[in-house]
């Protein structure tokens, strides 16, 4: 006689239930099976006959077990009563379901429980201390009444809750017991279980819990607290729940994981997981080491699944993850840098930056002619084309794709008022973006160009307007990007410090201090150029205060070398 009795609640996959019942029985454990009332009579009869050869398997009165309702508790009660009455040697009763699978040899469970004769293994926590709240109900599971099924009639269920909340209808706990909740799969000692079942006030408790929501997770969990001398608040059954509170299912490919879990029993097993049933029910070499149960190893994998379902991978936009604006959990997948005005002001900014950091430095990705990828490539990671038309079809997707496709390598790119501006808000609201702008630097290429002055004036006016709008975006209170803005005049006063700051923030720099600096273009005559624009009635203000004389002073020097920042 083993001292451990198994109560099995069964509703589908009866063939598997039979297999497991035989396994328990073979190890000497008496089994009481409760079959859901929903199972047709004939199927039930066949099931009973199929187990007819086992003397220590009994069947209890059938109740209808609908999720979240009293039936499951009633079934556990009557099956437990039958167990305690029919098998006086039973010291612990283990509540299991038809889709539970014993992982370790049953003898180990028997020995484990025999060494802890008075301990009750039942997860039992007060309502305020646990985050499991399906449908936003925790405390109210007990204080409200739930006469309709949540699964079948969600609408009525919600209305009932609403009405009771509005009128402040509340129930009191009988005898002031403190409500506890926990996994419905427990293992109780005969002493505790019989105390619960034979309590003179049981009718009062039953009447109360009949209208509690999901009583199978609270009835025994609450009442065990009244009688148990030693509660271990954990379940011996490995059972993982997803974000909707429904159990994760184990399949054949979980075999190694389950072997390493060291748990006595796992649920729930997919009925067609032949390899699992074979490995744990018939294969003696599948026996595991004698260690304290520790489901921690499996935790991670299922916690990750919940995380993926609720938060997802930042910066990923795909067929089954398409977050509404501002609900992205991260607009892009990784930090990146956007530079505006730098490649205009410095001759060799891009190669210099590539040399100074480990980042990939692109040119103007959003230029009107094409996407200027690093090293002049025609396509980039993820087979992204450099075609401007394809890019502009969805510029935001272009950027988020690019950052997603190049995860693991920091991306830097140049930007300017002549480029496609569709991404401005996306970048401004993206905490991954590091934006550095030298305002007004777009004037430098114009200054050095060979265009007609009328054309230059027209372009300058347009670019200034676009950049000004962009700066408004970057200065908006909704901005989340790391934004630095200098006017051109301000920047060329002391370029070292900002450059060092930018490199530090990119991190992963190859050099601790700036040894080599980028070469600034020859600005000889730039002040006069701006003055000419002003004289034409177009006032360039974004570059800051540029005295017209600056250029004149420089002409005095004989060297025609472009000037170097030191």
């Amino acid at each position, binding site marked *: 006689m083993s001292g451990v009795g198994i109560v099995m609640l069964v509703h589908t996959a009866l063939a598997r239930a039979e297999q497991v019942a035989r396994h328990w029985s073979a190890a000497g454990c008496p089994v009481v099976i409760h079959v859901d009332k929903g199972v047709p009579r004939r199927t039930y009869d066949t099931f009973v006959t199929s187990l007819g050869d086992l003397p220590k398997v009994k069947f209890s009165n059938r109740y209808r077990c609908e999720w979240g309702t009293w039936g499951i508790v009633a079934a556990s009660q009557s099956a437990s009563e039958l167990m305690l009455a029919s098998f006086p040697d039973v010291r612990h009763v283990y509540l299991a379901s038809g889709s539970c699978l014993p992982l370790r040899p049953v003898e180990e469970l028997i020995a484990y429980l025999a060494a802890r004769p008075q301990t009750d293994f039942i997860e039992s926590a007060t309502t305020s201390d646990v985050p499991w709240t399906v449908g936003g109900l925790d405390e109210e599971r007990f204080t409200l009444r739930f006469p309709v099924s949540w699964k079948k009639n969600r609408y009525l269920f919600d209305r009932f809750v609403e009405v009771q909340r509005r009128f402040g209808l509340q129930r009191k706990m009988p005898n002031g017991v403190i409500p506890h909740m926990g996994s419905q799969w427990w293992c109780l000692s005969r002493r505790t279980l019989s105390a619960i079942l034979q309590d003179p006030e049981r009718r009062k408790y039953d009447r109360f819990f009949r209208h509690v929501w999901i009583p199978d997770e609270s009835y025994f969990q609450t009442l065990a607290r009244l009688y148990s001398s030693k509660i271990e608040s954990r379940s011996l059954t490995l059972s993982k729940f*997803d*974000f*909707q509170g*429904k159990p*994760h*299912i184990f*399949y*054949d*490919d979980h075999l190694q994981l389950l072997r390493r879990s060291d748990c006595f029993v796992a649920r729930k097993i*997919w009925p*067609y997981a032949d390899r699992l049933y074979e490995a744990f029910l018939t294969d003696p070499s599948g026996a595991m080491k004698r260690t304290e149960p520790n489901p921690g190893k499996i935790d991670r*994998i*299922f916690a*990750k*699944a*919940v995380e*993926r*379902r*609720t*938060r*997802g*991978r930042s910066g*990923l*936009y*795909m*067929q*089954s*993850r*398409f*977050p*509404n604006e501002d*609900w*992205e*959990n991260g607009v892009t997948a990784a930090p990146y840098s956007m530079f505006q005005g730098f490649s205009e002001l410095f001759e060799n900014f891009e190669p210099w930056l590539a040399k100074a950091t480990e980042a990939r430095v692109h040119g103007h990705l959003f230029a009107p002619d094409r996407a200027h990828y690093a090293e002049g*490539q*025609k*396509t*980039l*990671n*993820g*087979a*992204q*084309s450099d*075609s401007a*038309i*394809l890019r502009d*079809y*969805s510029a935001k*997707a*272009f950027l988020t*794709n690019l950052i*997603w*496709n190049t995860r693991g390598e920091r991306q830097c790119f140049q930007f300017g008022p002549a480029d496609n501006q569709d991404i401005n808000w996306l970048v401004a609201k993206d905490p991954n973006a590091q934006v550095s702008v030298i305002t007004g630097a777009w004037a430098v290429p114009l200054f050095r160009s060979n265009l007609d002055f009328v054309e230059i004036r027209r372009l300058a006016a347009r670019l200034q307007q676009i950049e000004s709008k962009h700066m408004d975006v970057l200065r908006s209170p909704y901005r989340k990007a790391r934004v630095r803005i200098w006017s051109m005049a301000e920047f060329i006063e002391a370029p070292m410090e900002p450059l060092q700051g930018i490199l530090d923030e990119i991190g992963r720099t190859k050099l601790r201090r700036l040894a080599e600096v980028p070469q600034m273009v020859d600005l000889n005559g730039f002040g006069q150029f701006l003055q000419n624009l002003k004289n034409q009635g177009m006032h360039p203000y974004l570059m800051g205060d540029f005295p017209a004389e600056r250029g004149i002073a420089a002409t005095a020097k004989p060297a025609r070398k472009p000037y170097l920042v030191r």
Partner: protein
Amino acid sequence: MGIIQSYRLRLQRKRWRIRAFRKRRELKRVVDRTSQIRDDDILLFSTQRNERIRLPYFLEYYRDMGVGHFFIVDNDSDDGSHSYLIDQPDVSLWSSQASYRRSRFGVDWLNWLQMKYAHGHWTLTVDPDEFLVYPFCDTRPLRALTDWLDASSIKSFSAMLLDMYPKGRIDEQPYRAGQNPMEIASWFDSGNYTISRNHKFTNLWIQGGPRARVFFPDTPEKAPALNKVPLVKWDKRYAYVSSTHMLLPRGLNQVYDEWGGEKASGVLLHAKFLDTFGAKAAEELERNQHYAASVEYKAYAERLKDDPQLWCKWSERYINWRQLEILGLMSKGNWA
């Protein structure tokens, strides 16, 4: 959504169903093995025309996955595929000589068959060149997925179309009947897709991939849609609206999460670009039975005659579903 719009969609759904009902007369029953179907069988629906060479692998692939019965509409084939299908023990075959285009590219025919036979079954609607890949498909049969979807109260499962292509000219390696087409067409584009939301039907509209990159670089808006919902727990009131891109009632199109999470999804490997493609494109161009006046086939014909090459330096070589999930083309969601 407003009541009026909701009602309009309802009318539209009814219209598609009535249309499917009318189009039933274009279907001629060839072999009816539907009495073999068991209550919990997963059903597959497909139309085909002259796909004899593809059929053996196609049927084998889905049989291995756990499909219980095939419903195939043969549109006027003359390559022996008709008699080949008749001999298959788990295929029920219909044939139609009517216009493919006017049956809305087979949708009306399949809607009718689904209305009649698929109620209460998980149904997979795919073309003979589409191969479903879902999370854990190398270790779990399709029934594991549908059981899980049932347990999670999910009625439809998304699988985006992923165009596969060979390295080099697409007509270089001949495809043999029974061969896994992904042995030849083993490359794909991993990260150049664009998505927008269709507010009327609430589905996502996905475009991109090699077809947008190579065939439609100047008119990306014309590039074919890649979003698909091929696996549905069918109800006789449902109807596909346009290919398997979208359904009514439109709640079935909500296969994506809008609050940052990921729902489970798969991929349909699209092995269209094999050596058979050139002939097919020429034929389809002549028949002019395809979507938007076969604009797609025109673009292909034009582009492929000079340089039939889709491969580029950043093409990704297909390994398995885990690779697709890491690349972000599909997701395990909360299935673990």
